């Protein structure tokens, strides 16, 4: 039963390992599961999921795997299956989870079959009581987690129903939905992704004691202390950020603002420049595109060397002429095509990526997106946590 659930989890992309599965078994044996679906759900979650981004997937798989058991389908309730299914499940659960002592106790009460009978009778009673009402189906009185009822304290089916309904809600509420990694992202999440770009290096003035070197050189120095210093470690990544502003990018402005404010806090060496649709001979240091803020693209190419990493953020959606035709630019006359300029930038900065806020599935429908993606040799990534992650990974290697 749990194996199926475990495999379903893995199939859904939750990276649970065999070790964690065994831990769950161990925890159940230690009585932590408590034969209570709520507790079992929390326990399984704490054991099998190690990243809040996967909790939503876990909830979905959990709901799917245990659906038949927790919420029998309305149609099945009237028939025999409704009681058959949980019974089977219960037996499996009991075999797995009950200790020998507990099994003996059940035996003393008349054996498992007897208990099943009792439960069936009680369910029958309950059904009869409720059938008059119109809401009976919703309460799903046939819940197998009447399992709790088997413990020597007695059967408490009435309570149980209420508890199960609440439990079902816990994972059906999907409270962790917005932590899933393929949905859009907030500033904090972006910072986390961007932090993968951190690379520590020792540069600048020597101000920290290098213990290993000091000892080594002191020993060589016949025991006379010879202090050695090293520079402090700091984040040495240098980042050139080019943002597409205006026009079709207006739809994505909040997302880009967020990304921008995230980068601002993270990097000491950060230069941001703006362009409209496609970079030509001029870039701007301010999104208002005033002539005072204009910088010739050649200056950028000369000023920054290949150790800088270049990130383009834009939807790459424009008329193909803007990209491939000299004079095709929409704001001013360009003697060389946008493609030429882009190619220059990509060549000058081998560590470059294009981040596209448009969902990946739409990329193939825009010709300019396809061209740019080819120019970047597929280094185009979506503006999602996953995309950002892949982009940062690419920039580092």
């Amino acid at each position, binding site marked *: 039963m749990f194996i199926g659930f475990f495999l379903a989890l893995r199939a859904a992309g939750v990276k649970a390992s065999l070790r964690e599965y065994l831990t769950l078994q161990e925890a159940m044996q230690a009585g932590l599961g408590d034969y209570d679906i709520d507790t079992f759900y929390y326990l399984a979650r704490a054991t099998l*999921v190690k990243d809040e981004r996967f909790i939503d997937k876990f909830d979905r798989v959990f709901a799917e795997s245990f659906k038949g058991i927790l919420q029998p389908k309305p149609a099945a309730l009237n028939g025999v299956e409704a009681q058959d299914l949980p019974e089977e499940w219960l037996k499996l659960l009991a075999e797995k989870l009950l200790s020998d002592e507990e099994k003996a106790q059940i035996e003393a009460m008349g054996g498992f079959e007897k208990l099943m009978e009792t439960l069936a009778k009680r369910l029958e009673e309950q059904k009869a009581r409720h059938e008059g009402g119109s809401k009976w189906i919703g309460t799903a009185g046939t819940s197998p987690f009447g399992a709790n009822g088997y413990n020597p304290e007695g059967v408490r089916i009435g309570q149980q129903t209420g508890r199960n309904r609440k439990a079902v809600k816990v994972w059906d509420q999907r409270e962790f939905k917005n932590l899933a990694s393929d949905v859009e992202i907030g500033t904090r999440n972006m910072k986390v992704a961007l932090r993968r770009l951190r690379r520590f290096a020792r540069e600048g003035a020597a101000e920290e004691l290098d213990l290993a070197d000091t000892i080594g050189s002191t020993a060589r120095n016949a025991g006379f*202390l010879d202090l050695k210093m090293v520079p402090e470690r700091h984040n040495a990544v240098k980042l050139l950020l080019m943002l597409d502003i205006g026009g079709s990018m207006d739809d994505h402005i909040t997302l880009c603002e967020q990304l921008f404010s995230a980068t601002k806090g993270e990097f000491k060496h950060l230069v941001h420049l703006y362009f409209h649709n496609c970079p030509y001979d001029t870039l701007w240091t301010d999104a208002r595109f005033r002539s005072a803020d204009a910088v010739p693209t050649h200056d950028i190419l000369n000023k920054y060397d290949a150790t800088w990493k270049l990130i383009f953020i834009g939807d790459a959606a424009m008329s193909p002429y803007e990209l491939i035709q000299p004079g095709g630019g929409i704001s001013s006359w360009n003697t060389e095509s946008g493609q030429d300029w882009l190619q220059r930038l990509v060549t000058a900065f081998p560590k470059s990526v294009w981040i596209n806020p448009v969902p990946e599935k739409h990329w193939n429908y825009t010709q300019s997106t396809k061209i740019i993606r080819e120019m970047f040799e597929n280094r185009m990534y979506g503006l999602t946590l996953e995309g950002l992650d892949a982009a940062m990974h690419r920039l580092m290697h």
Partner: protein
Amino acid sequence: MARFEGTSSFVATEDLKVAVNAAVSLQRPLLIKGEPGTGKTVLAQEVARALGKDLISWHIKSTTKAQQGLYEYDAVSRLRDSQLGDARVHDIGNYIIHGKLWDAFEAQNAPVLLIDEIDKADIEFPNDLLLELDRMEFFVYETRQTIKARQRPVIIITSNNEKELPDAFLRRCFFHYIKFPDRETMERIVEVHYPGMKSLLLREALTAFYELRELPGLKKRPSTSEFLDWLKLLMAEDIGPELLREKSAAKLIPPLHGALLKNEQDVHLFERLAFIHRRGG
């Protein structure tokens, strides 16, 4: 085995209790993540208190090395002593400084060990502690002794998600994500901190607080601890529920907002909204 059921000063949700008890009884580390200000660090203190154990906290910084948690060999002191001709120099044990893990392993009664903000450290940090946390023992090369835990301590690790933790490390832990408390839980939290608070004021304050948190475009959403500070201020200043209601209905900035909004952009956002509202209304 003692069970953790929350304490008089800490409200634990059902899922948190399950995770803590699983970690305690199976003696595995518990990894806690969550929004800042949801009580990740406090949890360890409360678990220690509830289970009647000592708490050993190890706060991690970006420069912390795994080795520092085990022990450090103070080579510089020894070097100095050797130059001064100190007799202590012959015993290397005099220069071994115990780390937090060593203290936790050697304690008479198994303590609670808090490894706070593990993600602040270098990426390799968790990997360097894998074996030590798994087997609860380590080897001191300088003195050639093996330090073994007398009893396995309860280990609680917190992370702010600044770095991804390695899979091998995660596989050995239980995991819990403290989500932001819903209204009902928040009422219980307030009850624990300020017992007998006027319910009308609390209700209005909660409404104003959750409205504020839901506001789109907020740079930093206020946390539980900030809410508690704010309530304290409200009570100290004796601000009535009517004032709160009137403010929240008009979508104006709540009184004493300095306790909730810690960012001038957020304050500006509110002022702009208030302006638009006045003009529109």
